[in-house]
Every structure is written in C-alpha cells, then in structure tokens.
C-alpha cells in the first residue's frame, strides 16, 4: 500500500516538474519587470538579472534536469541490475571480479568523473557516464545480495530442477521477486543523477541560457544574491525538495523490501 502511495507520489512529483511550464504565469524566458525586482504580489519571488519572473522560471525549471536524470538513472539501474544478477547467480570468480570492478568505480568521486567526461562529451552525456560509473556499483551490490538469497528459495530450485536455462530463471523467477527492491533502487539512482546533473549545470555544462533551469538559475542569480535572495533560494529549495522526497520514499521502500 505505502509502496503504491510512494510510487504515485514520485510519479506526480516528476509529472508536475515535467509539465510545470504550463503553470507558469509569465513567460519564463522574457523580461516582464525591472531587473532584480524584489518580491511583490504580482511577482511573488521577484525578478532576476534580466527582469524575468523568478516564480515562472522555477515552475518551468525542473524539466531539463529531470529529463537528463531519468535516462541516466535508468542506464545505471540496467547496468547495475545486469551486473548484480550475474554476480549473485554465478558466484565465485564472476562475483569477485564484478564486485572488485564495482569497488574501483566507487573509489572515484562521481563528480570528478563527470567533470573529466565533460571534457569531451556534452553535459547530459557526462551525467549519464558519471551516474552509471558512480551508481551502478551500488545497485550491483544490492541486487547481488538479494540474488544470493533468492537463489536458494524453493521456487527457484524448482525451476532449476525443471531444467530451465539460467537466463530464463533470472528473468522469469528472480527479477519479478526483486521488482520492489529494484524500483526503490531506481529512485535512489535518480537522486544521484539529479545531484550530478545539478552540479554540472551549475558549473556551466548543462542547459544553455536563456532556458529556465534550476542549476542554471543558481549560476546566473548568484551575482544578485544581495539584491534578490529569493532568486537563488527558490530554485535551490525546489531542487532540494525534489531529491529529498525521492530519497525518503525510495529509502523507506528499500527498507521494507529487504
């Protein structure tokens, strides 16, 4: 029940972020008032350097980040689940090699990897690379632990005795049993992807002006923080709410599944 609720809330949150542009009262990309105008009733969060309405930009600004983060999180999850299934099912040497490789990737800070990858790749591709390298090893660990437990359950042993092939057992018997765990884990990878995307966006490797984008807004509005603090605080709070909510739901689901 809570799992359904959590999933619905996560989908609604992401849905609002994706469709937020329609709810913006003003154009998020063109000037509508004075530069760095303080909050008024017409512009509840004031204006930025070009006089654009901050509220409209915040409402519209999560879309590009989420659209970058979702494929990155999916990629990390797919790689991690595949690796975890292989390591947990095969055991022994395969397990040692795969977890060893995962440890190597975990030793490197993800943001450092993202930056190095951004030397050549466009920002969104660098987010995917870094999320896969930094997130997939964690998924691999979680899935591997789950598989080593599931492989000794009765229905898996029954399937093996029937003579089914390993891949068929993994896809038809093991994976469905872990769907909740994998779903919760996907939520956590989404948090990582959002963190990396936000950091890269702030460093100038994300959305290009004049797009409304939370990370870009932080970068642009920092110079006017003394004139209109809301222009910096608002996108920050929006991003923080999003990641915190996702993490809490994913974490509580993961606990229950384990």
């Amino acid at each position, binding site marked *: 029940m809570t799992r359904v609720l959590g999933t619905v809330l996560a989908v609604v949150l992401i849905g609002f972020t994706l469709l937020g542009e329609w709810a913006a009262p003003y154009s998020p990309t063109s000037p509508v008032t004075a530069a760095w105008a303080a909050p008024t009733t017409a512009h509840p969060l004031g204006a930025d350097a070009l006089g654009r309405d901050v509220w409209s930009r915040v409402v519209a600004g999560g879309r590009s980040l989420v659209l970058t983060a979702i494929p990155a999180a999916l990629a990390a999850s797919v790689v991690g689940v595949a690796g975890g299934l292989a390591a947990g099912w095969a055991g022994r040497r395969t397990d040692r090699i795969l977890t060893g490789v995962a440890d*190597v990737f975990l030793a490197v*800070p*993800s943001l450092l*990897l993202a930056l*190095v990858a951004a030397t050549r790749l466009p920002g969104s591709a660098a987010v995917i690379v870094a999320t896969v390298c930094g997130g997939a090893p964690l998924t691999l660990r979680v899935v591997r632990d789950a598989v080593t437990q599931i492989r000794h359950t009765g229905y898996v042993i029954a399937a093996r005795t029937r003579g089914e092939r390993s891949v068929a057992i993994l896809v038809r018997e093991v994976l469905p049993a872990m769907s909740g765990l994998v779903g919760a884990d996907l939520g956590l990878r989404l948090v990582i992807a959002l963190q990396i995307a936000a*950091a890269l966006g702030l460093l100038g490797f994300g959305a290009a002006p004049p797009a409304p984008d939370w990370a870009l807004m932080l970068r642009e509005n*920092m110079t006017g923080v003394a004139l209109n603090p809301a222009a910096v605080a608002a996108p920050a709070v929006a991003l923080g709410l999003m990641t915190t909510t996702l993490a809490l739901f994913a974490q509580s689901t993961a606990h229950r599944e384990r």
Partner: protein
Amino acid sequence: MTALRAFLTAIARALLLLLAVSAMVFVATELLPGDAAGARASNGATVEQVAALRAETGQDRPAWQRYTAWLGSLATGRLGTSLVNDRPVADAISQRLPASTALVVLALAFAGPLILVIGCWAGAGSRTRGTRTAVVTGLAAVPQVVLAAVLSALFAGALGWLPPVSLLPPGGSPLESPHLLILPVLSVALPTVVFGAGLLAGAVADTVRRPHAVDSRLRGTPTVLFFARDVVPFLLTPLARVVAISAGGLIAAATVVETLFGYPGLGSLLVTSVSARDTPVVQAVAMAAAAVVLGGLLLADVIAVLADPRRAPRPKRRAPRYLGVQP
C-alpha cells in the same frame, strides 16, 4: 610480520587502484569522441593544419602508446604544458594549491568532530533509529549546490553578513581574510558531515550492541561517559575510513563551491580547464585529486592495521545504499 604484510597489501591495492583510475581518466579525456586539436583549431583551420597539430601533440599515435607515454611522464613528474596558454601545468597547480589546501583542511577540521557526534546520534537511538536514519537520508539527498545556494542566499543575501563572492586578493593567502572562507568551508563541510555521519552510523549501531556497551548502559553510565569510554574508542578504524572517503568527496565538492563563490582553488582550475578542453591540465588535476582520495584510503587502511594488527585491512568499503554521490 602480519602487520608488514598487511601494509604491503594496502600499498599494492592503492597503487593498483591508482592505475585503474589513470586508465579511466585517460579513456575519458583522450578516447571519447572529439579531440583537443580539433577543438583548438576549430575556428577556420584546414584539415592539414589539424592533422599537423595532431602529429605535433602526438595524437596520431595508437591509444596504448599514448597511454604508456602519459603514464611514464606522470610517474616522472612531468605534467606537460597547458594547451590554452602554454604554461607548465605544474605551475598552474602549485599556484592554486594553497587556496585549495586551506579550504579542504579547514572543512575537514570542521567536519571530523561533527561526523563523530552526528554519527553517534544517528546510530545509537534504539527506538528512534528509523526516524534518525530518515533524517540523515533526507539531508544526504540534498544536492550540495542547493546547500551552498541556500547558505549564500541567507548569509550573503537576506542577512548581508558575509560577502557573496570569495575572490582572494592576488598573491594573498586565504588565511589573511578568514571571513571569505566561511561560506566556502561551510558549503564543503556540511554535506560531508551528513555523508560521513550516515556511513558511521552503521558502525555506531554495531558498537552499542556489543556486550560491554550493553552492560555499561544497564549499569546506568551517564550518556557522555558511555560514548567517551565505551563507544568512541571502538570507532577509531571506521572513523578513519569514513574521514578518508569523505575527504575524497571534498575535493570533488570543492569544484562546485569554488566556482559558485569565485574562490581560486584547484576545483575552479579543473572546471575552467574542462570547459576549455585543456586536456593536460584536466588530466593532471584529476589524477592529483584521485591520488589524494586513494592516499586517504591507504592511510585509513594503515590506521586499521595499527589499531588491530591481527586483522588485515578489509578490502571492501561499505558504501551507504541510499547514497552514491560523495558530497
């Protein structure tokens, strides 16, 4: 003898990891599509000019030759010259090093004790453990950019107590103007505290369940004495490891904070070099950062051996499941 063997294992492991990281950095900077010669000559250079530039920088050789040559020059301390301004990379790094060191050392000094306190708080509650873990999880999910922005909006914006940018006077030491360091240090340290506390909480929870700790609680030892005598001494090894891992995250985190506050350290050097596609500088800074990370882990391994010589350092680092991004 066992201790010596454990040391050697730890050193070999760190070197092997460093080699693996160097391969990652090389692949990311040299083998991914798009190359520096093409980017550098993009404004109206002919095909021949690009080819000549490639030959000049050795980019027409096979990848493995370039990799071994690069490794060799790294090992002998030749970091090359910048593609953008032809200055030696070593100069650029040594110029930025003091500011970065000040930032990271101060942040660690601030974060270390707090990691211990909050880790104990999050790990020790028996009935409230779930809530406390949730608090740490929720806080750990807050992106560092968010924290830095909120701190800045509050202290530099709404309250006006601190300057919004931390540009240092040319040639000046960061320690001469400590008020410029407050926002950067806090923004780097606080996510580290949450991350480290989350890691440490597991070790704390294990320690308070040990027989001597349970006994001590039943005897009614005051909380402060209980932690000081029965818990913290057992946390030395995990704490060293947590601080080492967090220190690695600090260096990556510094890129965001230095850029946001205009603080002239290695992090902002890395960011400007990445956007200028200045490969030699990116490689050198990334390898330096990786070396610090792995050096920290090695140090933690050594501390583990010294604390308990019978046990070799455990190669597995437990990463928190809810995280992944080091702050």
